[in-house]
């Protein structure tokens, strides 16, 4: 009798569960139809984004990682920012001008730019933000050496005085990572060198910080008092930014298969960082669209502080021994996701790109490599290629490079490490002879971390020629002058071989076809976009 009752109860429970599940399923299926562009723009709705790695902090000024940037640029805005062509445009600033001797910058701030806490941006906030930026940002520290004084002239005007001419100032302030985000004065002073804690995440962006459940999700909501610019054609990180969605949930989802399944079943609207192997699956799935971004490039960096690669001849042998097209082909497979280009910047970065000086990029001549090796002091001592096994691409590049190097007479050992171990080993020259690594897209020569003199990241590169070019870069005023320097920079890299570029990388995200007017740039940005449900 009692058993019968229990069974009945259990059956009812199961039945209700199935009912609930089915009703959920069908309601989300109905939403999968809106894909004609003619439909009306819908305000509101929640966007669920499956994001791979949880940021350590959302302090965009101090942390240069992509997860921090991709989420925090919805919350914070910079004084000046990059447009879609990577040119510097005003953002919170109304206008800016430099004095005739180029040592005094006067920046006026837009009237009535609202912070998320209800106050408006004044010159004092900008001054305090600059002071903090000089302390915590990697590009801010570079700029800081040239900054003599920052002061507020009136409520909405700030004056920056330099100790010598430095034309990189605006680029540094506009850097998408660790750029000069404007935060309220009290918060800037309270935080100082420490990263901003969640309660301090007060910016001026179209979305505001709502909550952060560690390990689970970060929630942003629309900022109703957002002070919008009007320029609809600027793009990038400035111009018109309209917050159309009510809420954006960044959910931490690591597994690519889960992301794909989640998009198929409408659990997520957008998923970031999908292995390119899945591209064909995605193309054939009806309600999912691929999104691609430029993502810097992969490189092979020799340790120039110790034998054998302290000798330029051995580095040249390395250069001639590597068939980069073959490496890229077997690493990336699909041609949509890599590009053979030897320049320091991406072709889409019109202000920074030049192909000049890269003629020798694809030279491949194993015979010449053998000759050069014979002429050098290298006698077959084993060389170590170190890489992080968290990244499939670096692993494949290392493996193909190993084969190609052994063909010309190098003896090679591969040493894969997990990322944290890799980072530590990287800083000691005796741990490695070659590392395989990638760098995300950079927006100024100051940000080329793999060429910073005498550091592990650059393989202890020491070059007067390069340092001189960096100084010239700071002085160059016109676009022509800059192009000349950029060409010379390319040439220096191919003459001195501090690193060997493999190929430009493209990364893959996926989104539901409900998302409209989404504009891919260098990372996921969800203003000016909406969902048709």
């Amino acid at each position: 009798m009692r058993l019968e009752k229990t069974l009945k109860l259990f059956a009812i429970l199961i039945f209700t569960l199935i009912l609930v599940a089915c009703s959920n399923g069908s309601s989300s299926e109905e939403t999968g139809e809106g894909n004609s562009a003619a439909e009306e723009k819908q305000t509101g709705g929640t966007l669920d984004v499956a994001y791979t790695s949880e940021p350590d902090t959302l302090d965009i000024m101090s942390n240069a990682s992509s997860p921090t940037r991709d989420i925090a640029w919805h919350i914070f805005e910079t004084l000046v920012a990059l447009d879609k062509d990577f040119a510097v445009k005003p953002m919170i600033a109304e206008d800016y001008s430099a004095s005739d001797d180029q040592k005094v910058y006067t920046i006026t701030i837009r009237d009535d730019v609202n912070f998320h806490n209800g106050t408006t941006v004044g010159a004092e906030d900008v001054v305090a933000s600059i002071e903090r930026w000089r302390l915590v940002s990697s590009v801010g520290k570079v700029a800081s050496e040239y900054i003599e004084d920052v002061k507020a002239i009136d409520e909405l005007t700030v004056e920056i005085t330099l100790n010598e001419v430095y034309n990189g100032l605006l680029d540094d302030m506009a850097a998408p990572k660790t750029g000069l985000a404007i935060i309220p004065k009290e918060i800037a002073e309270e935080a100082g060198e420490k990263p901003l804690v969640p309660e301090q995440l007060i910016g001026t962006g179209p979305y505001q910080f709502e909550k952060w459940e560690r390990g689970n999700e970060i929630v942003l909501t629309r900022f109703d008092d957002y002070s919008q610019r009007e320029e609809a054609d600027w793009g990038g990180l400035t111009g018109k930014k309209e917050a159309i969605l009510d809420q954006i949930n960044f959910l931490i989802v690591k597994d690519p298969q889960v992301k794909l399944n989640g998009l198929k079943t409408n659990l997520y609207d957008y998923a970031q960082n999908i292995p390119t192997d899945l591209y064909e699956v995605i193309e054939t799935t009806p309600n999912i669209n691929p999104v691609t971004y430029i993502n810097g490039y992969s490189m092979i960096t020799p340790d120039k502080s110790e034998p054998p690669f302290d000798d330029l001849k051995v580095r040249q042998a390395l250069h001639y021994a590597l068939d980069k097209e073959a490496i890229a082909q077997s690493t990336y497979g699909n041609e949509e996701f890599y590009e053979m280009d030897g320049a320091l910047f991406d072709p889409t970065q019109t202000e920074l790109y030049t192909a000049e000086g890269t003629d020798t990029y694809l030279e491949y001549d194993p015979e010449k490599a053998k000759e050069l090796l014979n002429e050098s002091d290298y006698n077959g001592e084993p060389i170590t290629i170190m890489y992080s096994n968290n990244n499939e691409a670096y692993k494949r590049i290392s493996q193909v490079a190993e084969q190609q190097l052994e063909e010309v007479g190098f003896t090679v050992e591969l040493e894969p490490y997990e990322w944290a171990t890799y980072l530590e080993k990287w800083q000691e020259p005796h741990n490695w002879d070659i590392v395989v690594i990638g760098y995300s897209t950079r927006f100024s020569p100051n940000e080329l971390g793999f060429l910073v003199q005498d550091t592990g990241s650059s393989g202890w590169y020491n070059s007067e020629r390069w340092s001189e070019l960096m100084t010239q870069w700071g002085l160059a005023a016109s676009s022509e002058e800059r192009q000349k320097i950029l060409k010379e920079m390319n040439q220096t890299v191919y003459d001195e071989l501090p690193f060997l570029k493999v190929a430009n990388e493209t990364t893959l995200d996926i989104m539901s076809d409900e998302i409209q007017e989404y504009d891919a740039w260098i990372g996921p940005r969800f203003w000016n976009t909406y969902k048709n449900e």
Partner: protein
Amino acid sequence: MLHYTLRRLLAIIPVLFIVSIIVFMIVHLTPGNPAYLILGEDSSPEAIEQLEQQLGLDKPKVIQYFDWLGNIFVGDLGQSIYSEQAVTQIIVERLGPTFSLMVISMLLTIIVAIPTAIFIVWKRNTVLDPLFLSGSLLGTSIPEFWLALLLVLGLGVSVPIFPVAGYIPITDGLLGWLHHLLLPGIVLAAVEVGLIARMLRDSMLESVNQDYTKTARGKGVKESTVLMKHVFSNALIPTTTVIGVTVAGLLGGTVIIETIFTIPGVGQLLIDSIHRRDYPVIQGVVLFVAFVYVLINLIVDLLYAFLDPRIRYD
């Protein structure tokens, strides 16, 4: 009994002390350094040194250990290097999902395993017994991740009855909570059911032909009563042990399932913290899991006395 319990509780201290030494050593001898991770690839050696100083990582290891140990005695497991949250608070936050998963999978396991085992013992001389044996072997041998992916494809994608991933706290609605946890619960239960049902069947079969059961049958007691009253009660002791160990194992052992279903539990926390070299969190979680493990074992021991009146500890 009270005396025994107190003695056992005191014995937890040396166990945890040894665990603390081992976990501290393993964590700190592993290469990698949180300062490099926080500052990223372009950091300068000076910045690294400064941050290490701030984090107290430049102090000698022995001093770091005793600082940590000293704080544990006052209930302070330190704070995360990354989020600066207290480790105890982080563990409490992550315990909800893991605990929910444990409860659901254990309930499913017990609901399925115990009746199945009893039924099989009842039908012990039929073809059902060998079928059950191979079935339970299959259950314990199936790789969790494979079963999980299969169920997700079947019941999440092809026939979308269940969500493919995610977690909703029970405070946000019982149905949503259950709806999200049923699939991962089934996967975990599949493994445990095989183990526990098999264990129960074996120990029941052992007593099925004992003298006291024969006597009971001789007295004319119904077979069902014999099984339930005499055989089942006696078989509960070893089964309780297995259930106890399983529950304790689930606390740290749900990593794979938590990853596949993106459930923000203790297992995920541990893995993330290891990748980040968040020393205080790794140490805190391991110590906490060890503590719960010892505690569950103690509870199981105390349950013996309850289940079998012949067992007395004093």
